[in-house]
């Protein structure tokens, strides 16, 4: 018995994100219903499904944009249900957006610096900034170095002084990921990172995502439509359809699941 409890605790310790019966409905529409996902630490987890299946809704629930009507979710054992967006971000969930949301009128490096805003090692009150006390210069200098470091992961350090809106589409996606990483998250949510990229850029992105996972020890949950990318890097998958979980498990099993194929391609007439 004691052994069992021990084992359960052990496995709990290893789980980064856990959702229990997570759900929300808008009017009569169940946008997400009874979602149970467990993501282990340092895992690359995929979330797929046809249009309107509720994938982005799940992201919005996990980042506090929506408050779930039912269920709870835990990050690293901590219940974050119903917290405000900025609190959830500080606790360690960072995201990118499906339709890119950069700070367009700021330079690339400033975008990343905004992401670094809450890092405890760069603390500095508005008062200190207004009157230029030493801590301001110190933190600004170190933030800048850190931002350059992050940009170099994505090969953007040359473009750091361009306006974010002047970057190419692929680079804008990369910048969004860099900015999310700057908040020093435990779990990174990527909403269609490869949308609008050509095959070569996608391959490059796959490499980068693998790099983030392996070298930075990041846990990643990703929404994607590009099946090559999903099959190439995701270890486990959850398939959503009409707001509910259709299939869950190892990538290869799920992609061969007849239900999943039906959901994506439709049923044979005869």
């Amino acid at each position, binding site marked *: 018995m004691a052994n069992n409890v021990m084992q359960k605790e052990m496995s709990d310790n290893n789980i980064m994100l856990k959702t229990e019966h997570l759900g929300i409905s808008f009017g009569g529409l169940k946008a997400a219903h009874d979602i149970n996902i467990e993501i282990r630490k340092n895992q690359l987890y995929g979330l797929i499904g046809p249009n309107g299946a509720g994938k982005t809704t799940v992201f919005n629930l996990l980042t506090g944009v929506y408050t779930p009507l039912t269920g709870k979710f835990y990050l690293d054992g901590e219940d974050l249900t119903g917290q405000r967006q900025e609190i959830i971000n500080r606790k360690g969930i960072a995201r990118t957006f499906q339709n890119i949301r950069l700070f367009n009128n700021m330079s690339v*490096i400033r975008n990343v610096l*905004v992401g670094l*805003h809450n890092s405890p090692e760069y603390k*500095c009150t508005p008062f200190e900034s207004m009157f230029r006390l030493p801590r301001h210069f110190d933190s600004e200098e170190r933030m800048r170095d850190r931002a350059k470091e992050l940009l170099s992961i994505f090969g953007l350090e040359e473009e750091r002084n361009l306006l974010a809106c002047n970057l190419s589409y692929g680079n804008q996606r990369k910048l969004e990921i860099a900015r*999310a990483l700057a908040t020093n998250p435990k779990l990174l949510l990527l909403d269609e990172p490869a949308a609008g990229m050509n095959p070569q850029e996608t391959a490059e992105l796959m490499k980068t995502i693998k790099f983030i996972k392996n070298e930075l020890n990041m846990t990643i949950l990703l929404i994607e*439509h590009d*099946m090559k990318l999903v099959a190439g890097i995701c270890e486990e998958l959850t398939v959503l359809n009409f707001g509910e979980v259709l299939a869950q498990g190892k990538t290869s099993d799920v992609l061969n699941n007849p239900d999943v194929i039906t959901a994506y391609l439709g049923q044979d007439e005869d």
Partner: protein
Amino acid sequence: MRKLSNNTKYDFKFKYLVNYCIVLALLVLGLVLMFTGGLKMSFARLLTQIGFSIILAVSLNLVVGFLGELSLGHAGFMCIGAYIGGFSANLLSNYIGSKFLVLVLTMIIGGVLASVFGFIIGLPSLRLKGDYLAIVTLAFGEIVRNIFKNQKAFGGAMGLSTGRIQYDSRNNMTLFIITFAIALIMLFVLQNLVRSKHGRAITAIRDNEIAAKAMGINVTFYKLLAFIVASFFAGVAGVIYAHYTTPVSYTFFSYNYSIEILVMVVLGGMGNITGSIIAATLISCVNFFLQSRLSGDLAALRYLIYALVLIFIIIFSNAPALRPFKEKYGISALSEKIKKLLKKSKPFNPAVIKEDEGSWDRIPTKIDMDALLSTDINPDTPDEQEGADKKSD
């Protein structure tokens, strides 16, 4: 690395020094005239007016240009500062002999009280956007001045008499020195705030509030901070106004004056402090000369001429035909030339912003007014238009 960051410091210093220089130039102009005995009363008063217009315009720019919220109640904050400052100065002058000390003390009182109201007005701004917030702030300005109008203690409809505490006298005109000193302090505080991580957070909220929240920016805190700082300085400007003219009349702080401050910000370019300073100076001068130089039948046309001048300025600042001329002789061209003289370096590439911190005043200065007003009230609608590519292997 080290060398690069030293370079940055040099770069952005130059940019914000320009603003101090303009204010200092005005101050020095006044001082030179004063010591050579050529300072007329009317010109000293114009300088004071320019001074508090600069304070008002730059502080409003923090809310409108950097935070991106349209506020039409800036005259309301000034009104609070003027009435409270004038009232407490009347009281304090019974106990304190030094006019200077009274002025400084009442500035603090007026500024703090105005910023308390800034906090209160900032609260709805967390839920309201665009024109809705504009309506609330507009109403706030009207409510404030009507409350003061109906208080016997503040002089009622006659206005609060501040004749006793008028700072300037016929042979001692020094209020403009204090006004410009305050303007310099304000520039120091605001520019430092804007060019720091906190300023970045404020501009991030303007650029994309949803993304700012997702990056862990405390939107509540920064919106309130911007409103509080801006209204503090508006209150201080109000206190200067109370020491500048008598009586302090509620009619001055009308909707029109709020708009006039907004015009200064818009003319100068939103998010452009140098522009605000120049526009505030220009508009104050235009106002002043139209008021004092037009006589007889022309005086009736004052507002018409004022409007024509504004239209001319706006056309001049945007007309494509004038662009080559401006590129050659405009302010930015001038500052580039000075910089080249100082540094003899790289060709100027407008796409490349100087190292980050300097870029605060290269934020595109003209935010589309329409875009500002038609901000999406409910941008959180679930967007599920996923890509069209749906193949399953």
